[in-house]
């Protein structure tokens, strides 16, 4: 079965074409700058053939038409015809309380997703555009939606509720949903496989540290808490997002700076985090370099970043009554050697014995980083959200 996975963003579409029988990625690529100047499509085929095509891409439907055009082309294609695609899987950011698992996309499901736009006005509309486009171009193909929030729907009310008037939850659905669920689900299952253990026997803390970052407490295979909330702003300090912030400070800032909702959103989402504190960059590599060169604010940003992750690991250990394995994933989690080391330092009281020699120079591979005698294990597991989407799509379509 061949499955096309689509991750449709505001001005970009990422895609991967899987052959589920051979577990191969037949082709992958990116359509970028949709509706803007300089739009292009990049495609890479399994055999290494690479192409970048520049031209006008006016909207998402137009972009997906070109993706399909390239996939069936003689020169750069991986398929004979569109009929060779058996199903399409879509990433959908917010599933609200309506979706606690991946679903076959029907008109009814689309209506439900449209109702959720209010909760994720930046993310869900482009996801839906991808679905509309595929529906328009291949009306009969089965499509599956895989939600970032679904994995965290197992959280108990005491984890997901905010201490605000209950009526605001019932009226608007204001609660913690959490994101990066597909990633947390993949790495936690994968680490159990790698450790040869049943995930139901493990207490896992999964740290997805990328430009956006979240951490999840996964007890016996179920998410019991996660750091992101109603929106992705809550929790860890991120590249340009604040993470946790006293809401009193926020209303104070709004009053002092005389700013409205739009500017406040930009302040919280784009001017803050590692960039806002360091004044250097949102790219952790640049901030690490600046810190090494003696930039005090870069050093402060790094210290804050690491401290916040450490604090969450501590609180999730308490929440689960212990921890068996801590996972690092995402661009920073997989590649930033010193940040990993600093985060898990001083965890000896938990029985964690970190092995610096195993950590040194390790980037983006599946590897255990603790000593054999360590009670708590630390692993790097590179994430693969597209694979999860493809697998879910496969399972749902197979069961049809």
């Amino acid at each position, binding site marked *: 079965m061949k499955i096309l996975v689509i991750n449709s963003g505001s001005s970009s579409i990422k895609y991967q074409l899987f052959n589920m029988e051979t577990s191969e990625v037949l082709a992958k690529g990116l359509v970028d700058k949709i509706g803007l100047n300089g739009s292009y499509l990049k495609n890479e085929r399994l055999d290494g053939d690479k192409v970048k095509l520049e031209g006008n*891409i006016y909207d998402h439907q137009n972009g997906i038409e*070109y993706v399909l055009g390239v996939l069936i082309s003689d020169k750069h294609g991986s398929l004979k015809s569109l009929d060779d695609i058996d199903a399409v899987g879509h990433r959908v950011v917010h599933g609200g309380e309506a979706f606690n698992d991946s679903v076959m996309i029907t008109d009814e499901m689309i209506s439900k997703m449209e109702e959720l736009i209010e909760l994720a006005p930046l993310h869900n509309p482009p996801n839906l555009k991808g679905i509309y486009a595929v529906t328009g171009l291949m009306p009969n193909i089965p499509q599956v939606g895989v939600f970032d929030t679904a994995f965290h729907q197992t959280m108990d009310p005491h984890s997901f509720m905010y201490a605000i008037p209950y009526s605001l939850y019932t009226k608007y659905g204001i609660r913690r949903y959490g994101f990066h669920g597909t990633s947390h689900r993949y790495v936690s299952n994968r680490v159990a496989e790698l450790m040869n253990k049943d995930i139901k026997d493990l207490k896992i803390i999964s740290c997805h540290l990328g430009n956006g970052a979240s951490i999840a407490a996964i007890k016996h295979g179920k998410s019991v808490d996660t750091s992101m909330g109603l929106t992705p702003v809550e929790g860890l300090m991120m590249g340009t997002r604040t993470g946790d912030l006293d809401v009193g400070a926020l209303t104070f800032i709004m009053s002092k700076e*005389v700013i409205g909702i739009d500017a406040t959103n930009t*302040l919280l989402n784009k001017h803050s985090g590692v960039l806002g504190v360091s004044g250097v960059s949102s790219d952790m590599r640049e901030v690490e370099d600046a810190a090494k060169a003696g930039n005090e604010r870069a050093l402060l940003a790094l210290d804050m970043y690491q401290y916040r992750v450490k604090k969450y690991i501590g609180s999730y250990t308490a929440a689960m009554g212990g921890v068996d394995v801590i996972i690092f994933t995402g661009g920073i989690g997989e590649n930033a050697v010193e940040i990993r080391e600093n985060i898990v330092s001083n965890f000896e009281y938990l029985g964690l014995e970190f092995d610096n020699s195993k950590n040194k120079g390790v980037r983006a591979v599946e590897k255990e980083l603790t000593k054999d005698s360590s009670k708590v294990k630390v692993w790097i597991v590179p994430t693969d959200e597209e694979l999860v989407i493809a697998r879910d799509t496969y399972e749902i379509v197979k069961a049809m």
Partner: protein
Amino acid sequence: MKEKLEDYALSKSAQKQSDGIKVGLVGCGSMGQEIAVLVSKSGIELTFIEVSEKRIANAFMKMEEQIEEVISHWGMTSGDKRAIMSRINGSTNYEDLADCNIVIEAINTKKWVPNQPVRKEVFKKIEKVVSSDCVIISNASTIVISDLAVVLKRPCRAVGVHFLSPVLATKIIEVNRCISTNDEAIEKVYRFARMIGKDIIKVYGSPGNISTRLIVPMINEACGLLMEGVSTVEEIDKTMKIGYGMLRGPFSMADRIGLDKLTKWMEGLYNEYGDIRYKTSPLIRRMVRAGMLGRKSGEGFYYYENGKKIQKTGSLFNLGHKQKLF
């Protein structure tokens, strides 16, 4: 040979350019600059026409300053600024508007003159270079779009669109169609409005639309209250702000619009309707003569220092101003 993306289209529909909008702008003064930044921020390429290279350079400088101001109030990032500026081109040659499918006239005339000959000339020049389906828009707020449409060979493409300042923040635009405007042109403008994130207020053939017709009498009446000694600038503003939940009182609003621009609006509406409500208040006339134009000149009904509004003290006849009127 470099491969073309178009060669990989699934069907001809993928090659259609129906969703591509390129915008032209004639006149890049303060209003034009705000419009250019808004359009480009929405991901649309824009070419503006100015009368000299010097004015083009000045427009670019002012637009950068405008964005910097927004960044300093956390509303955008420097990445946004780079993206916005990269989509704006300036030219002195109308031919550079040839591939635009919407062209906006936003020229800044020194004073209101009957019959709008300069704007008419601009409309003719635009029509000479653009394609037959290009929509031509005027941003003038106190004239009837029909008066400009008559000079076009295809008057059905003329639409009045009033952008309200501050253009980036104000969520509405007034779209004024005239008798000759056809549905195709108006649909294109509606789509453009959605792309730039504005709600449309539909207006039919009325000079001054809704906004200008309502704000002008209020400011005139506020001047009347002041001249009668009923109350002070601050208290009149405070009454309307707090009492009626307005974002700004009439004097703050007048200073923000610019008293010279306000005078043009008033003259335009008075000329059209002949109603005393629109006749420029003598107080505003006196202030304009003295160069007290509001925020942009640093002094109007308030003082402005480093962008901050400072209340004046003193009687009506000196208004607490630095320059004496009499």
